[in-house]
């Protein structure tokens, strides 16, 4: 062990929510100049620990020492002023303000009390450049994708001269390139002696960047380990309390039993969104979409669900031309769409788990035909079990669930509709290793049962593992359609993306 005194020392932290013990006697020691990973399943208490540390929630018990002095922050602002800069799991920026304002809010360069816009824009652009990002900093943040918003949140955190940087799942919607860029910045900070507390469900990332890790299980500390001394298998076993070996075994995908063409898009496109593309989806087929951030994957999904209007092209379902103008129409054709931004486009945080799960089904029936209570309870119970939603309480408000569990609720909403085409946009975002394998298996099972799936993920391995064919996008254009045979690897995919489809 190094002899350096910890910059951050949490001892005996406890935190209760009504009916839930989120943290129980948790210790955490973070040394200066180290990247410390906080590991655990969905709902293990990682975000809660971070919120207790940074003054969002008061702790019920325990002490926090920052640089040897006891502290107790009443608000995130106090924590920030003491040198702890945080990116929370749910990006909480102001969508209506510009990118520059979001990065510098509260720290605007001023002269005689008036904001100086030019230096402000310049400083914001510099911050983004450090993350290799070139954005119009005067545009409203809402215009950008979730991944970019995540990067902006990181840029905002880096604005502060922090001694401790806390990143709660900063990479959940980033792709490889951006993650690399972020890691470069993190290594830089680390060399300057900044301590970084890092949460991620991507084990590869953790092994790449973290020096040590603390594992939480069900709100208790399982132990802390130098990354080098704990293998992946052991790590998983410690996180979930059993072996994952059986989960990782997803058999080779059998070829799709292509009974027939379900949906055919012909030169479908949207000006300013995605260039005209043609795509055939067969029954029982999993079609993966790969591409970088902003390449148009989400746009393809939104057009097929009628979330956006197509400006050209046509779609046929079962050979009959259809006009997918609204989500309702798409739903009558048994298309379902699980959007990537669960906070903005998916969940109603103030409603319960049950209400959120039955929402789409109830909307399809109309308000005059309420779903009987027993049937609701049955459906919800089934998916709470199938997806291991925790706490397993249908009447819990969704806003009180951990990020990964919220994602599962959203997934459940669309699964109960038993669609013919299920569009999943980053369905495993923020989901832990165990549940991720579970969801992948579910997708495989559903497609074996005849459901077609359009699967979008920034994680190429996942796309490859599940898909029968992969559509590759670049610059808002579908540039290639590759059958997923033995020759298709992540390298081939990356090359296709990089070369723009010309091989």
């Amino acid at each position, binding site marked *: 062990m190094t002899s350096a005194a910890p910059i951050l020392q949490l001892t005996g932290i406890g935190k209760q929510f*009504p009916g839930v013990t989120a943290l129980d006697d948790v210790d955490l020691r973070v040394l200066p100049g180290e990247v410390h990973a906080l590991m655990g399943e969905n709902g293990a208490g990682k975000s809660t620990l971070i*919120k207790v540390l940074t*003054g*969002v*929630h*008061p702790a019920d018990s325990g002490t926090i020492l920052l640089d040897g002095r006891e502290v107790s922050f*009443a*608000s*995130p*602002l106090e924590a920030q002023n003491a040198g702890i800069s945080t990116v*929370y799991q*749910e990006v*909480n920026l102001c969508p209506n303000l510009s990118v520059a304002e979001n990065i510098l809010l509260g720290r605007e360069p001023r002269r005689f009390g008036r904001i100086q816009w030019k230096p402000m824009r310049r400083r914001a652009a510099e911050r983004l450049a450090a993350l290799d990002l070139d954005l119009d900093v005067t545009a409203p943040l809402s215009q950008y994708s979730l991944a970019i918003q995540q990067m902006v949140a990181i840029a905002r955190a880096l604005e502060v001269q922090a001694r401790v940087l806390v990143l709660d799942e900063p990479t959940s919607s980033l792709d490889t390139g951006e993650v690399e860029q972020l890691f470069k910045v993190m290594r830089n900070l680390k060399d300057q002696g900044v301590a970084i507390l890092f949460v991620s469900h991507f084990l590869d990332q953790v092994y790449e960047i973290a020096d040590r890790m603390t594992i939480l299980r069900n709100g208790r500390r399982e132990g802390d380990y130098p990354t080098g001394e704990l293998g992946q298998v052991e790590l998983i076993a410690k996180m979930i309390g059993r072996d994952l070996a059986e989960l990782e075994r997803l058999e080779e995908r059998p070829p799709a039993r292509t009974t027939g063409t379900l949906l055919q898009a012909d030169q479908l496109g949207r000006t300013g969104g995605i260039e005209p593309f043609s795509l055939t989806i067969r029954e029982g087929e999993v079609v993966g979409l790969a591409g970088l951030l902003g390449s148009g994957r989400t746009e393809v999904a939104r057009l097929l*669900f009628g*979330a956006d209007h197509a400006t050209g092209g046509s779609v046929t379902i079962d050979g009959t031309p259809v006009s997918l103008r609204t*989500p*309702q129409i798409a*739903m009558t054709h048994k298309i379902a*769409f699980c*959007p990537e931004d669960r*906070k*903005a*486009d*998916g*969940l*109603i*945080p*103030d*409603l319960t788990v049950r*209400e959120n799960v*039955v*929402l*789409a089904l*109830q*909307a*399809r*029936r*109309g*308000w*005059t*035909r*309420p*779903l009987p209570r027993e049937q609701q309870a049955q459906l919800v119970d089934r998916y709470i079990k199938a997806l291991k939603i925790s706490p397993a309480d249908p009447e819990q*408000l969704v*806003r*009180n669930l951990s990020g990964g569990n919220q994602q599962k609720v959203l997934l459940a*909403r669309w699964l109960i509709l038993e669609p013919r085409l299920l569009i999943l946009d980053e369905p495993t975002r923020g989901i832990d290793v165990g549940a991720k394998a579970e969801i992948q298996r579910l997708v495989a099972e559903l497609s074996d049962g005849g459901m077609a799936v359009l699967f979008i993920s920034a994680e190429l391995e996942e796309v490859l593992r599940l898909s029968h064919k992969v559509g590759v996008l670049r610059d808002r254009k579908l540039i290639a359609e590759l059958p997923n045979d033995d020759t298709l690897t992540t390298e081939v995919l990356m090359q296709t993306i990089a070369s723009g489809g010309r091989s």
Partner: protein
Amino acid sequence: MNRRLLWPAVVLALLLLLNLFFTPGFLSIEVKDGHFYGSLIDILRFGAPLVLVSLGMTLVIATGGIDLSVGSVVAISGALACLAISQGTGVLAAVALAVAVALVLGAFNGFLVAVIGIQPIVATLILMVAGRGLAQLITDGQIITVTDAGFKVIGGGYLFMLPFGILLALVVLAATVFLTRRLALGLLIESVGGNAEASRLAGLRSRGILITVYAFAALCAGIAGVMVASNVSSADGNNAGLWIELDAILAVVIGGTLLTGGRFSLGGTVLGALVIQTLTTTIYSIGVPPETTLLFKALVVAAVCLLQSAAFRARAFPRRERPVTQPVQDTTEVAR
């Protein structure tokens, strides 16, 4: 759920006690001429129109909107009913006409908000202003007086020993509860109010829901208008329902429904409306000088709103709670 009803209930109880202190027999109810009689009954009876309007307002506010036009709709519907009766139309037909017109006006509001996409506060301001004029046109600037005994029953008569207005309000309350909680209207309203874009992507027809809700609010206002006109046996296009929209909004807020939309509480709204009505009664019964009545009312309302706020309670009565000042997600329910 019940915690939210706690504070308005406490304030209501305090107001009643205050009255009891000034008027010893305040809480007693007797039977006179074969029906119940007493101050509490009066509060319920005079409060019935406000309860009606507030019920409709609750649903509108739950969608994240607001309806400023309900006061004008009260005036229009009262005027229409009285005009029709004074010209010899039967009471039922006159009332049906008034309520049907109110429904159409509400649908118009809903159309402006849901289809044209005008901000609710602006969209309903149109009818708020124009509607007063319309009501005066109907009454020709006069006060129309009607002497029909059947019409008088609605706002001034009795059934099962209780004022008819109270029963009518109860029926509308029951219908609202049925529509929103037994049927699924409530879920869809709370969903649209909680996150409109997410609701659209879950396949909700938010347009239809919005139009329904505004139409329902106007329907409630229409019934209230008939009740008010019947109670005074006349229609006054100028003053009927004046400022009732503000009382209704207050009632909803006091009842614990947030102006930002989402979760709503019908029980809370009824309590809120009763608080306001009791307050009005109190002002008269304890003899607050007329020039300070509005100030007195404002103080009580401010007190209730402060008590509703978890952050304020934590600061005023510090236990182990801590107010949440930073707008970080997931923290609104923390202090308790």
